[in-house]
């Protein structure tokens, strides 16, 4: 007989999430991922000054605010028919890269590691209900040390971000045209020297740590895979002179990589708490989450570091919970290289700012891959104000609800996974955290149901 397991809260993620799973003979036979908070940013943005969207949408997420600043800026530039200079793009992409490093360090050490490493029990924060810790003492001790040591480097990543962006989280740097300030030589050398230290920590600690975990928790290379459909909007790509430093907009499905086409994005809400008019409706029958169901070609896709590493050809070992975590660490190292290239190509003391005018009307989209995957902002401007704003965040892709009988990406990744002890089902959290869920980002999606050609996501 099936046994029902509920985990709520799923801690060590951003925001609030519940997982409900049915387990039969120690195998998950049904799973639901549920976003448990609603905020409604799209509603708040209507009627505001379009330029304010950049700093405003940052507040969607405390851990990936830069991602929203970037997507928002891209959408506004599109609506204004404004093309930023290459120097402007380098500068804001450096800020974005700092966020990748900060996010990946914290996700690996503070959010992922406690699933695999026994942290000191004299801290109340670190008590757990399971005992599936497999690392030999010496190795475990080393990783406890790295848990704390990593805090210095994730903090340093935010410090690099602040050198160009003013502060972090919620930076002021990213804006139309690139960034607000200029890259001066003292700033460039400060960032370069911090980056060097972070790169060394990644090579000496983070990479060995993740591969050791992979050795001792080997079955996670074979569980948590899911559909295996991968998608990226591209990032650090298509520079005029530098070409693509990371990944182009691509999708992978049925062993085939093809170009990404934004017109194929759609979004369902059958099992999410929204009524026919797209208003939040917590009473809705059959609904179980605040997260809608983004689809590409009508099927669910996985987004994030593994999708990018796979699509750009850097890492194709497999699609599983462990591969996802390894891809995140490998990506951090890749980002160090990309940042170095961008820094080397900066021309110091160049202002990329102009006097901008709010367009009377226009529409634009900003699609870019961010730490957790593909992020899209869509804006419609009328009477020089925001008339409609839409956001589909990476975690909306990864934690989407069902459409028909088709499960969301995260849900599918849990299907068939083993649960050894239903009283402490540690496997579920390990699999779902490999996606780096961010529910704060995923659950305020709202649309007015208008059919707008430039906005396929209605």
């Amino acid at each position, binding site marked *: 007989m099936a046994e029902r397991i509920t*985990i*709520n*809260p799923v*801690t*060590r993620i*951003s*925001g*609030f999430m519940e997982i409900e799973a049915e387990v039969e003979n120690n195998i998950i036979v049904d799973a639901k991922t549920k976003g448990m*908070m*609603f*905020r*409604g940013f799209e*509603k*708040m943005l209507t009627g*505001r*000054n379009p*330029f*304010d969207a950049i*700093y*405003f949408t940052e*507040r*969607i*997420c*405390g*851990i990936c605010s830069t991602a929203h600043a970037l997507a928002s800026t891209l959408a506004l530039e599109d609506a204004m028919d404004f093309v930023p200079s290459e120097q402007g793009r380098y500068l804001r992409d450096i800020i974005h890269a700092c966020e990748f490093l900060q996010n990946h360090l*914290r996700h690996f050490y*503070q*959010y992922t590691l*406690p699933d695999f490493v026994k942290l000191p029990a004299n*801290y*109340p*924060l*670190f008590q757990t*209900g399971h005992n599936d810790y497999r690392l030999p003492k010496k190795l475990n001790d080393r990783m406890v040390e790295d848990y704390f040591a990593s*805090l*210095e480097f994730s*903090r340093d990543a935010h*410090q690099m*971000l*602040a*050198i160009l*962006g*003013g*502060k*972090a*989280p*919620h930076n*002021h740097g990213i*804006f139309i045209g690139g960034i*607000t*300030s200029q890259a001066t030589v003292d700033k460039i050398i400060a960032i370069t020297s911090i980056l060097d230290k972070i790169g060394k920590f990644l090579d000496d600690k983070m990479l060995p740590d993740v591969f050791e975990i992979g050795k001792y928790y080997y079955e996670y290379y074979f569980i948590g895979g899911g559909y295996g459909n991968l998608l990226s909007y591209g990032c650090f790509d298509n520079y005029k002179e530098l070409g693509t430093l990371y990944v182009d907009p691509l999708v992978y499905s049925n062993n085939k990589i093809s170009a990404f086409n934004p017109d194929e994005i759609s979004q369902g809400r059958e099992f999410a708490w929204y009524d026919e008019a797209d208003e939040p409706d*917590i009473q809705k029958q059959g609904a179980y989450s605040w997260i809608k169901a983004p689809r590409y070609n009508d099927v669910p896709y996985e987004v994030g570091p593994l999708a990018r590493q796979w699509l750009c050809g850097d890492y194709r070992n497999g699609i599983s919970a462990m591969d996802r975590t390894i891809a995140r660490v490998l990506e951090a190292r890749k980002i160090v290289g990309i940042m170095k290239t961008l820094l080397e190509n900066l021309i110091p003391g160049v202002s*990329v*700012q102009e*006097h*901008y*005018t709010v367009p009377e009307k226009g529409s634009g989209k900003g699609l870019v891959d961010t730490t957790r995957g593909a992020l899209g902002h869509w804006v419609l401007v009328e009477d*020089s104000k925001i008339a409609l704003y839409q956001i589909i965040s990476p975690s909306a892709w990864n934690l989407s609800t069902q459409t028909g009988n088709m499960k969301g990406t995260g849900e599918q990744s849990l299907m068939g996974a083993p649960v050894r002890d239903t009283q402490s089902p540690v496997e579920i*959290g390990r699999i779902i955290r490999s996606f780096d869920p961010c529910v*704060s980002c995923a659950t305020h999606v709202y649309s007015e149901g208008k059919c707008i050609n430039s906005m396929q996501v209605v």
Partner: protein
Amino acid sequence: MSSKNFKCPYQDNKLKSTANLVARVNNDIKAEKLVKPNLVWLELNGCAGNIISLLNGQNPDFQYLITDMANITYSNSLLAAEGNQAMNELFDVIGSNFILAVEGAVSLKEDGRYNIIGRHNHEAVTGLEAVQRLGEQAAYVIAVGACASHGGISAARPNPTSCVGVHEVLQRKVIQLPGCPCHPDWFMGTLAYIILYGEPPLDSRNRPLMFYSTTIHDRCPRRSYFDNGIFATKLGEKTCMFKLGCRGPVTRIDCPIRQWNGHVNWPIEDDSPCIGCAQFGFPDAMEPFVNFNPTKGV
């Protein structure tokens, strides 16, 4: 001109206030004059950016906080446990000497059901219920960041989830640390003060005076441009950004001297206007954030 070039004893003292307090806490705890209090970090409807900001703390840093200052018994972002065990850890603190730090706003819509923070013995726990149960029992309640202090961006019009600040749902004093996010020093310094001396001196809106006593404008390194009527017309300029919409004149906080992320920068030094994130009324009363046409209201 950078504020770092000043050698003013008043400013110097302000900057070191957190570090000095924290050092005393550590000494007194080691000398067993003080017992480490429990600290609950409760996330509600928000972006979880204040715990991320707290992890950026430096002197004291996060490891020092949890090792030498307080026993953090709960944080949704950091707790190793999950599910019902996590909820047990959250509520087991009731009855002990604990300080409650809250980030995020309290959503009142549908009795709080737009923000479920966990399931305790199979029952869904709303953010509203958690903050009321813990808040009335805590020795001190600290609202960390804009959303917890006054609703912040979570309560931006039309306030889709009926969000309010923590003090609105508690019948007690709540120490307010507005800011989006809260600077790690503002929290660490307030916590250290509480541990050592009890409630810090507060202004009429319950903000600690040691951080919130002076407006940004009063200590702005670009003040001379304002006084001389030299105003920036676009971002990226080194003059006064008042006409671009800078909210420094109404925002009481110490950003000009404290700065951010290891004191390397802050929004005005970054050639962008202050958007008043540490002032009540943020964001609605602070918009437009950036205004290129000051003669025409947007």
